[in-house]
């Protein structure tokens, strides 16, 4: 028995204090190893081959000649791949996207569909053989034309009902003093994490092991177990460091292909997506066409609100981008109608991407609010104050906390909003027109069941094990601080281990639910461990371990509208000679519960706002209608904001307590992007007097307006 020192050095207050990342030294020295960087003896390299046609059937795969190429070990395709199961419901309550269940049939539903995996001794050999592999297709006509006038669009209930309807919309619109009816569009957008998807699969003593880059090891391990009909305990997925995810890193074709090849060859096989392959295999955000109708009294009070959002999906899997959902939390009206509809085309399946629904939805809704403020002749912030709901506009439930107006007050003060002349097109600085804009932000604050294991070690330190993922959020550090406070010790005595499905079931890093869900489990286990240690029985050599499972506690949470809120502000300069829009400064003020680590939280908010700049001005994947594939599917063709595009952005927060919430933490990963593009678009209107209802706000879209010509 060792006497433990707990209790003699009581410490609290780590949460809320800035702390550099616990893995920071590894990241700045290059020592942190990501999924494709763990060495394995006898490693073989797989290279995916993707379809070049948008629709049809594979008539032949000419693998014989490729099998004779140097180093080639195997060519997997639909005629020789093992069957996999897809008729199951995964961790997130949905069926798998069959795109991940590779090589099961000869049908091709889009350009970039995986048709083969070439495995060779080296990556150079695999790549050359993959590029040499000839695949013949029976091509069929395809349809990739997305527009708001599709007659085949249909409503789809997904993680929210497709439609919400309250009140008589037409009569309220008719009774309104001011009416707005406008269409907004957002383009196809791609997550583009810096680290491409990478997985190494191998069998070890009857267990399938996958070293992967993903947003949830529990999730991916569970999907692989179901897909390959394996005992869940015989699948282990690890994901120590993850080079960004943003919604794209779940179960995907590369993991399944790697598992198939490792099973056949009985040696470790690594499959990494190329950057170009990511544009068709890694998911993306659907383009949207949104129609908003608002009706208001002369003072801006909303009588009617209608928000319709159309998005697309593939022919093999239904995924809907619920852009119209944001109005259900934000604004009430006597008549309140929202609907999310879907159209199926010969394109890859989209997926969750940072603030799914809220990001494009808030661009439309918050632009529309700005237009309404202009029509009513009132300040955009005053309009939002006037329409601040008491309860959930659709659910009727109370808000757990709603500090949106505090965000606007603080933000307006710091941004200098009071001095703003609301009239557009007045401020000029050489060839630049200047303007400012604002928008509101919200994102749901959910939690999902998780388990954690906390061990008091004999040496006085503590080990936390949880199948959390740190995809750049700072989760590893946040959980260290949370555990330290729950144990009442300093953070340096706590070691947090994450990214291993063997640690027990846990929520994914997604939906802004990760840190809230994991913290809950860690606090529960650590709190119980502290109470046991307080009994003073000492710590045996093997330590004392406490496990937690938050399923019951989360199930018992009262039904409320739980959201984070925020106020976005932007100042832009528009070059009237080139049509270039530059963001000069941004400020975001957020109400997002308890902020665990101010250093990393600020960075994450700003990162989301940076995505807002990128969404407003740069990002747009262009699909070629004749081939059905992308134009310029790489980081030269698909522009994301870089250093020179991003000015000084400030992010801060207001108090947002909820005494009834056991953890008090709301997620912050997504809310930074919500409303950010609208704030920029509203600022462009303020600068130029021209409304931009289609993103991105490209120079060619700005130029006609800036020179006084009609808006295209």
């Amino acid at each position: 028995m060792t006497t433990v020192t707990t209790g003699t050095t009581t410490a609290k207050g780590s949460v809320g204090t800035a702390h550099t990342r616990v893995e920071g030294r590894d990241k700045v020295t290059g020592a942190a190893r990501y999924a494709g960087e763990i060495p394995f003896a006898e490693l073989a390299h797989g290279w995916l081959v993707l379809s070049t046609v948008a629709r049809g059937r594979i008539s032949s795969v000419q693998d014989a000649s490729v099998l004779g190429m140097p180093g080639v070990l195997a060519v997997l395709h639909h005629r020789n791949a093992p069957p996999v199961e897809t008729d199951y419901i995964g961790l997130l309550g949905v069926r798998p996207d069959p795109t991940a269940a590779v090589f099961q049939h000869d049908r091709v539903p889009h350009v970039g569909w995986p048709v083969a995996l070439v495995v060779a001794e080296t990556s150079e050999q695999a790549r050359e053989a993959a590029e040499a592999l000839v695949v013949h297709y029976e091509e069929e006509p395809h349809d990739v034309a997305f527009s708001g006038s599709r007659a085949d669009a249909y409503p789809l209930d997904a993680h929210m009902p497709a439609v919400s309807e309250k009140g008589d919309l037409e009569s309220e619109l008719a009774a309104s003093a001011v009416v707005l009816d406008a269409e907004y569009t957002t383009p196809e957008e791609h997550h583009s994490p810096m680290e491409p998807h990478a997985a190494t699969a191998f069998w070890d003593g009857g267990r399938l092991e996958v070293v992967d880059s993903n947003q949830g090891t529990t999730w991916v391990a569970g999907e692989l177990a179901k897909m390959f009909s394996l005992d869940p305990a015989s699948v282990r997925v690890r994901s120590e460091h993850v080079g960004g995810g943003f919604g794209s890193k779940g179960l995907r074709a590369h993991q399944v292909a790697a598992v198939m090849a490792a099973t056949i060859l009985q040696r470790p096989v690594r499959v990494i997506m190329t950057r170009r392959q990511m544009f068709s295999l890694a998911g993306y955000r659907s383009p949207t066409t949104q129609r908003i109708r608002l009706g208001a009294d002369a003072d801006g009070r909303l009588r009617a609100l209608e928000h319709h959002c159309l998005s697309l999906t593939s022919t093999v899997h239904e995924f809907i981008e619920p852009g119209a959902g944001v109005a259900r939390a934000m604004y009430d009206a006597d008549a309140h109608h929202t609907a999310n509809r879907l159209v199926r085309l010969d394109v890859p399946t989209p997926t969750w991407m940072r603030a799914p629904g809220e990001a494009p939805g808030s661009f439309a809704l918050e632009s529309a609010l700005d237009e309404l403020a202009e029509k009513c002749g009132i300040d955009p912030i005053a309009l939002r104050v006037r329409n601040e709901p008491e309860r959930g506009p659709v659910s009727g439930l109370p808000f757990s906390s709603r500090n949106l107006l505090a965000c606007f007050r603080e933000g307006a003060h710091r941004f200098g909003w009071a001095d703003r002349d609301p009239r557009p097109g007045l401020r000029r600085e050489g060839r630049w027109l200047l303007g400012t804009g604002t928008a509101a932000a919200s994102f749901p604050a959910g939690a999902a069941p998780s388990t954690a294991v906390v061990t008091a070690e004999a040496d006085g330190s503590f080990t936390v094990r949880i199948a959390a993922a740190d995809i750049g959020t700072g989760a590893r550090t946040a959980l260290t601080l949370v555990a330290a406070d729950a144990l009442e010790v300093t953070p340096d005595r706590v070691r947090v281990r994450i990214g291993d499905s063997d640690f027990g079931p846990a929520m994914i890093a997604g939906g802004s639910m990760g840190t809230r869900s994991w913290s809950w489990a860690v606090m529960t286990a650590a709190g119980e461990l502290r109470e046991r240690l307080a009994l003073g029985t000492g710590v045996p050599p093997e330590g004392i371990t406490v496990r937690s499972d938050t399923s019951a506690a989360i199930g018992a949470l009262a039904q409320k509208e739980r959201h984070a809120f925020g106020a976005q502000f932007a100042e832009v300069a528009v070059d009237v000679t080139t049509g270039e829009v530059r963001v000069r400064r941004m400020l975001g003020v957020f109400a997002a519960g308890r902020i665990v680590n101010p250093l990393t939280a600020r960075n994450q908010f700003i990162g989301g706002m940076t995505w807002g700049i990128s969404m407003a001005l740069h990002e747009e994947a262009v699909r070629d209608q004749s081939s059905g594939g992308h134009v310029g599917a790489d980081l030269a063709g698909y522009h994301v904001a870089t250093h020179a595009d991003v000015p000084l952005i400030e992010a801060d927060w207001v108090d947002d307590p909820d005494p009834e919430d056991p953890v008090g933490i709301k997620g912050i990963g997504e809310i930074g992007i919500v409303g950010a593009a609208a704030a920029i678009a509203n600022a462009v209107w303020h600068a130029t007097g021209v409304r931009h209802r289609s993103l991105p706000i490209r120079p060619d879209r700005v130029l006609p307006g800036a020179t006084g010509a009609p808006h295209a």
Partner: protein
Amino acid sequence: MAPAPSSTYSAITLNINGEKYALSVDHRTTLLDALRERLDLTGTKKGCDQGQCGACTILLDGRRAVSCLQLAVAAQGREITTIEGMAQGERLHPVQQAFLDLDGYQCGYCTPGQICSAVAVLEEHAAGWPSAVTDDVRPEAGPPPLTAEEIRERMSGNLCRCGAYVSIVQAVARAAATDATDAETAEAENTAEAVA
């Protein structure tokens, strides 16, 4: 296992971070893949393999280069510095320290490239190289003020999808200030020694 030299393989020696590495490489092997797949120097990252993202930035004879667009066989005889060669033992390079202190990253995947780029940016700037946003580009003008705008322009070949640009720029500025302070201190010490 390194195959024997042939029409498709060559035996080469690479000088990396002051050490010599002898290896046999496929002629198609990029310097990036040689570092990552053959020499276990995985600090240099592969983000796009097309020279578009900057994650694989290294220093080649002191100047930054994207290692995905360099063939390993062509890198013989050149001085290669990777992220693994930036720290002096346990002591981080001032740029690394600033990234750590100011949270100049999130996921960390672009970080080695950002840091290698930043180290070279500070040297390029100190040597008086202008950028596209430098007002006075005359050779005799000397280094322009290292404003945030100058740093952003010079760092724009390195993408960070997490969107940590604001803190990266602050980290580079901090490191530049540290360098300047060190230089002034060193100069003052030299002067003091000379006077003594």
